[in-house]
Protein backbone atom coordinates (compact mmCIF):
# COMPACT_ATOMS: atom_id res chain seq x y z
CA UNK A 1 0.00 0.00 0.00
CA UNK A 2 1.55 3.25 -1.10
CA UNK A 3 0.85 6.49 0.68
CA UNK A 4 0.37 9.79 -1.09
CA UNK A 5 0.72 12.69 1.27
CA UNK A 6 1.78 15.21 -1.34
CA UNK A 7 -1.54 16.69 -2.40
CA UNK A 8 -1.92 20.23 -1.06
CA UNK A 9 -5.14 20.96 0.81
CA UNK A 10 -8.10 21.14 -1.52
CA UNK A 11 -6.03 20.87 -4.69
CA UNK A 12 -7.46 17.72 -6.13
CA UNK A 13 -8.45 18.36 -9.74
CA UNK A 14 -11.19 15.87 -10.58
CA UNK A 15 -9.91 13.04 -12.68
CA UNK A 16 -6.22 13.94 -12.67
CA UNK A 17 -4.71 11.66 -10.02
CA UNK A 18 -7.61 9.27 -10.44
CA UNK A 19 -6.73 8.78 -14.06
CA UNK A 20 -3.09 8.14 -13.27
CA UNK A 21 -4.08 5.60 -10.64
CA UNK A 22 -6.57 4.04 -13.04
CA UNK A 23 -3.65 2.83 -15.14
CA UNK A 24 -2.61 0.65 -12.20
CA UNK A 25 -5.54 -1.67 -12.58
CA UNK A 26 -5.40 -3.40 -9.19
CA UNK A 27 -5.53 -0.31 -7.01
CA UNK A 28 -8.09 2.09 -5.64
CA UNK A 29 -7.57 5.66 -4.43
CA UNK A 30 -8.95 6.50 -0.99
CA UNK A 31 -9.57 10.15 -0.04
CA UNK A 32 -10.14 11.38 3.51
CA UNK A 33 -11.80 14.66 4.44
CA UNK A 34 -12.27 16.92 7.47
CA UNK A 35 -11.83 15.31 10.91
CA UNK A 36 -10.93 11.95 9.33
CA UNK A 37 -8.18 13.55 7.25
CA UNK A 38 -6.71 15.19 10.37
CA UNK A 39 -6.92 12.09 12.57
CA UNK A 40 -5.41 9.83 9.91
CA UNK A 41 -2.72 12.39 9.09
CA UNK A 42 -3.03 12.27 5.32
CA UNK A 43 -5.48 13.22 2.58
CA UNK A 44 -5.26 10.14 0.42
CA UNK A 45 -3.74 6.73 -0.01
CA UNK A 46 -3.69 3.95 -2.55
CA UNK A 47 -4.87 0.47 -1.62
CA UNK A 48 -4.67 -2.82 -3.50
CA UNK A 49 -7.86 -4.67 -4.34
CA UNK A 50 -8.56 -8.22 -5.46
CA UNK A 51 -9.39 -8.40 -9.17
CA UNK A 52 -13.13 -8.71 -8.58
CA UNK A 53 -13.22 -5.79 -6.17
CA UNK A 54 -14.59 -5.86 -2.64
CA UNK A 55 -17.38 -4.27 -0.63
CA UNK A 56 -16.91 -0.90 1.02
CA UNK A 57 -17.19 -2.61 4.41
CA UNK A 58 -14.39 -5.03 3.55
CA UNK A 59 -12.22 -2.25 2.15
CA UNK A 60 -12.64 -0.13 5.30
CA UNK A 61 -11.80 -3.16 7.47
CA UNK A 62 -8.66 -3.79 5.39
CA UNK A 63 -7.56 -0.15 5.70
CA UNK A 64 -8.11 -0.28 9.46
CA UNK A 65 -6.08 -3.47 9.83
CA UNK A 66 -3.16 -1.89 7.97
CA UNK A 67 -3.04 1.31 10.01
CA UNK A 68 -4.17 1.78 13.61
CA UNK A 69 -4.71 5.52 13.01
CA UNK A 70 -7.21 4.67 10.27
CA UNK A 71 -8.95 2.16 12.52
CA UNK A 72 -9.10 4.73 15.32
CA UNK A 73 -10.48 7.45 13.07
CA UNK A 74 -13.17 5.14 11.67
CA UNK A 75 -14.13 3.98 15.17
CA UNK A 76 -14.39 7.59 16.39
CA UNK A 77 -16.97 8.49 13.75
CA UNK A 78 -20.16 6.43 14.11
CA UNK A 79 -21.75 8.01 11.02
CA UNK A 80 -19.11 7.51 8.32
CA UNK A 81 -20.14 8.55 4.83
CA UNK A 82 -18.67 7.03 1.67
CA UNK A 83 -18.64 8.26 -1.91
CA UNK A 84 -17.58 6.08 -4.82
CA UNK A 85 -16.44 8.00 -7.90
CA UNK A 86 -17.94 11.15 -6.34
CA UNK A 87 -21.41 9.65 -5.76
CA UNK A 88 -22.65 8.82 -2.24
CA UNK A 89 -22.71 5.06 -1.77
CA UNK A 90 -23.68 2.34 0.68
CA UNK A 91 -21.46 0.04 2.73
CA UNK A 92 -22.41 -3.03 0.69
CA UNK A 93 -21.52 -1.41 -2.63
CA UNK A 94 -18.68 -3.06 -4.56
CA UNK A 95 -15.46 -1.05 -5.01
CA UNK A 96 -13.56 -1.93 -8.18
CA UNK A 97 -9.95 -1.30 -9.24
CA UNK A 98 -9.54 2.24 -10.56
CA UNK A 99 -12.36 3.66 -8.42
CA UNK A 100 -12.01 6.78 -6.30
CA UNK A 101 -13.39 6.14 -2.83
CA UNK A 102 -13.88 9.04 -0.42
CA UNK A 103 -14.52 8.53 3.31
CA UNK A 104 -15.76 11.42 5.44
CA UNK A 105 -17.93 12.50 8.39
CA UNK A 106 -21.50 13.76 7.90
CA UNK A 107 -21.51 16.93 5.80
CA UNK A 108 -21.95 20.35 7.42
CA UNK A 109 -22.28 22.94 4.68
CA UNK A 110 -24.48 26.00 4.32
Amino acid at each position, binding site marked *: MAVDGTRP*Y*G*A*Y*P*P*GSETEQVGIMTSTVTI*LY*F*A*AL*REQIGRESQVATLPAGGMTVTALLAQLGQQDPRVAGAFAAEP*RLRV*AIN*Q*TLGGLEQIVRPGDEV*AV*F*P*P*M*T*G*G
Partner: protein
Amino acid sequence: MSVPGAGVPKVGSPEMGSPELDSLGAGIHVAVQEAPFDTASEIARLSALSDRTGGVGLFFGQVRGGNGLVSLTLEHYPGMTEKILHALAHEAVQRFGLLGCTLIHRVGTLRVGEAIVFVGASAAHRGAALDATAFLIDRLKTGAPFWKKEEFADGHASWVAAREEDEHAARAWSQDTPPPA
Protein backbone atom coordinates in the same frame (compact mmCIF):
# COMPACT_ATOMS: atom_id res chain seq x y z
CA MET B 1 -7.95 25.56 -4.23
CA SER B 2 -11.48 25.39 -5.55
CA VAL B 3 -12.07 24.23 -9.06
CA PRO B 4 -15.42 25.70 -10.07
CA GLY B 5 -16.96 23.72 -12.88
CA ALA B 6 -13.92 21.51 -13.44
CA GLY B 7 -14.93 18.00 -14.35
CA VAL B 8 -18.57 19.01 -14.39
CA PRO B 9 -20.51 19.08 -17.65
CA LYS B 10 -21.04 22.67 -18.70
CA VAL B 11 -24.66 23.68 -18.60
CA GLY B 12 -26.10 23.34 -22.04
CA SER B 13 -23.33 21.03 -23.23
CA PRO B 14 -24.21 17.73 -24.92
CA GLU B 15 -22.89 15.90 -21.80
CA MET B 16 -25.77 17.35 -19.84
CA GLY B 17 -28.16 14.98 -21.59
CA SER B 18 -31.65 15.66 -22.82
CA PRO B 19 -32.65 18.86 -24.64
CA GLU B 20 -35.18 19.36 -21.86
CA LEU B 21 -32.42 19.41 -19.23
CA ASP B 22 -30.39 21.77 -21.41
CA SER B 23 -33.18 24.31 -21.54
CA LEU B 24 -33.73 24.02 -17.78
CA GLY B 25 -30.01 24.44 -17.18
CA ALA B 26 -29.93 27.81 -18.91
CA GLY B 27 -31.04 29.65 -15.77
CA ILE B 28 -28.76 27.77 -13.37
CA HIS B 29 -25.61 29.24 -11.87
CA VAL B 30 -23.41 27.19 -9.52
CA ALA B 31 -20.07 28.28 -8.03
CA VAL B 32 -17.70 27.07 -5.30
CA GLN B 33 -15.14 29.77 -4.57
CA GLU B 34 -12.89 31.40 -1.97
CA ALA B 35 -13.71 34.90 -3.20
CA PRO B 36 -16.65 36.93 -1.89
CA PHE B 37 -19.73 37.23 -4.10
CA ASP B 38 -21.82 40.27 -4.98
CA THR B 39 -25.34 39.73 -3.70
CA ALA B 40 -26.86 42.59 -5.70
CA SER B 41 -25.59 41.34 -9.04
CA GLU B 42 -26.69 37.78 -8.24
CA ILE B 43 -30.22 39.01 -7.49
CA ALA B 44 -30.15 41.10 -10.67
CA ARG B 45 -29.30 38.02 -12.76
CA LEU B 46 -32.17 36.02 -11.25
CA SER B 47 -34.55 38.98 -11.65
CA ALA B 48 -33.69 39.41 -15.33
CA LEU B 49 -33.98 35.74 -16.31
CA SER B 50 -37.42 36.05 -17.90
CA ASP B 51 -40.37 38.37 -18.43
CA ARG B 52 -42.32 35.75 -16.46
CA THR B 53 -40.19 36.20 -13.34
CA GLY B 54 -42.46 37.43 -10.57
CA GLY B 55 -40.07 37.10 -7.66
CA VAL B 56 -36.76 35.85 -6.35
CA GLY B 57 -36.48 33.77 -3.17
CA LEU B 58 -33.21 34.30 -1.33
CA PHE B 59 -31.18 32.77 1.45
CA PHE B 60 -27.92 34.45 2.43
CA GLY B 61 -25.82 32.61 5.02
CA GLN B 62 -22.96 34.14 7.01
CA VAL B 63 -20.56 33.16 9.78
CA ARG B 64 -22.40 33.46 13.09
CA GLY B 65 -20.35 34.70 16.05
CA GLY B 66 -20.63 33.80 19.71
CA ASN B 67 -18.75 31.81 22.38
CA GLY B 68 -15.48 33.34 21.24
CA LEU B 69 -15.73 32.14 17.65
CA VAL B 70 -13.31 33.98 15.37
CA SER B 71 -13.60 32.17 12.05
CA LEU B 72 -14.80 29.11 10.20
CA THR B 73 -12.72 27.13 7.74
CA LEU B 74 -14.74 25.36 5.07
CA GLU B 75 -13.29 22.29 3.40
CA HIS B 76 -14.91 20.57 0.43
CA TYR B 77 -14.47 17.73 -2.04
CA PRO B 78 -13.55 19.40 -5.35
CA GLY B 79 -15.39 17.81 -8.23
CA MET B 80 -18.05 16.06 -6.19
CA THR B 81 -19.23 19.35 -4.68
CA GLU B 82 -19.91 20.91 -8.07
CA LYS B 83 -21.64 17.73 -9.30
CA ILE B 84 -23.96 17.64 -6.27
CA LEU B 85 -24.79 21.35 -6.48
CA HIS B 86 -25.63 21.11 -10.20
CA ALA B 87 -27.85 18.08 -9.56
CA LEU B 88 -29.59 19.89 -6.70
CA ALA B 89 -30.17 22.99 -8.84
CA HIS B 90 -31.67 20.91 -11.65
CA GLU B 91 -33.91 19.07 -9.20
CA ALA B 92 -35.19 22.39 -7.81
CA VAL B 93 -35.87 23.83 -11.27
CA GLN B 94 -37.91 20.76 -12.23
CA ARG B 95 -39.68 20.27 -8.91
CA PHE B 96 -40.73 23.90 -8.37
CA GLY B 97 -40.98 25.04 -11.99
CA LEU B 98 -38.29 27.67 -11.49
CA LEU B 99 -37.07 30.01 -14.20
CA GLY B 100 -33.60 29.56 -12.73
CA CYS B 101 -31.61 29.37 -9.52
CA THR B 102 -28.18 30.21 -8.10
CA LEU B 103 -26.02 28.30 -5.62
CA ILE B 104 -22.77 29.96 -4.54
CA HIS B 105 -20.78 28.47 -1.67
CA ARG B 106 -17.51 29.84 -0.33
CA VAL B 107 -14.62 27.71 0.96
CA GLY B 108 -11.47 28.47 2.91
CA THR B 109 -11.27 30.58 6.08
CA LEU B 110 -14.10 33.05 6.71
CA ARG B 111 -14.34 35.41 9.69
CA VAL B 112 -17.44 36.16 11.77
CA GLY B 113 -19.92 38.16 9.69
CA GLU B 114 -18.50 37.08 6.34
CA ALA B 115 -20.78 35.57 3.71
CA ILE B 116 -20.75 31.78 3.30
CA VAL B 117 -23.58 30.87 0.98
CA PHE B 118 -26.02 32.42 -1.50
CA VAL B 119 -29.13 30.52 -2.55
CA GLY B 120 -31.52 32.24 -4.94
CA ALA B 121 -34.57 30.94 -6.81
CA SER B 122 -36.37 32.80 -9.60
CA ALA B 123 -40.02 31.91 -10.20
CA ALA B 124 -43.28 33.29 -11.51
CA HIS B 125 -44.84 33.31 -8.03
CA ARG B 126 -43.56 33.68 -4.45
CA GLY B 127 -44.67 30.22 -3.29
CA ALA B 128 -42.36 28.38 -5.67
CA ALA B 129 -39.52 30.86 -5.10
CA LEU B 130 -39.66 30.55 -1.30
CA ASP B 131 -40.23 26.77 -1.23
CA ALA B 132 -37.38 26.18 -3.67
CA THR B 133 -35.05 28.36 -1.61
CA ALA B 134 -35.81 26.36 1.55
CA PHE B 135 -35.44 23.08 -0.37
CA LEU B 136 -32.06 24.12 -1.76
CA ILE B 137 -30.49 25.26 1.53
CA ASP B 138 -31.94 22.34 3.51
CA ARG B 139 -30.61 19.77 1.04
CA LEU B 140 -27.29 21.55 0.53
CA LYS B 141 -26.46 21.57 4.26
CA THR B 142 -26.37 17.80 4.64
CA GLY B 143 -26.05 16.59 1.03
CA ALA B 144 -23.14 18.52 -0.44
CA PRO B 145 -19.58 17.61 0.65
CA PHE B 146 -18.67 20.64 2.76
CA TRP B 147 -17.26 20.50 6.30
CA LYS B 148 -16.94 23.38 8.76
CA LYS B 149 -14.21 23.81 11.32
CA GLU B 150 -14.63 26.44 14.05
CA GLU B 151 -11.66 28.48 15.26
CA PHE B 152 -11.92 30.30 18.61
CA ALA B 153 -10.16 33.30 20.19
CA ASP B 154 -8.40 31.08 22.74
CA GLY B 155 -6.72 29.19 19.92
CA HIS B 156 -8.66 25.96 19.98
CA ALA B 157 -10.47 24.62 16.93
CA SER B 158 -13.05 21.91 16.39
CA TRP B 159 -15.05 20.37 13.57
CA VAL B 160 -18.75 21.19 13.56
CA ALA B 161 -20.86 18.13 14.34
CA ALA B 162 -23.79 17.37 12.03
CA ARG B 163 -27.09 18.36 13.67
CA GLU B 164 -30.02 15.97 13.75
CA GLU B 165 -32.48 18.77 12.95
CA ASP B 166 -30.54 19.55 9.75
CA GLU B 167 -30.72 15.89 8.69
CA HIS B 168 -34.44 15.92 9.48
CA ALA B 169 -35.05 19.09 7.45
CA ALA B 170 -33.28 17.57 4.44
CA ARG B 171 -35.17 14.28 4.72
CA ALA B 172 -38.51 16.08 4.90
CA TRP B 173 -38.03 17.21 1.28
CA SER B 174 -37.56 13.65 0.05
CA GLN B 175 -41.29 13.01 0.11
CA ASP B 176 -43.38 13.76 -2.96
CA THR B 177 -45.06 16.74 -1.37
CA PRO B 178 -43.17 19.58 0.28
CA PRO B 179 -43.47 19.77 4.07
CA PRO B 180 -45.95 22.26 5.48
CA ALA B 181 -44.37 25.69 5.93
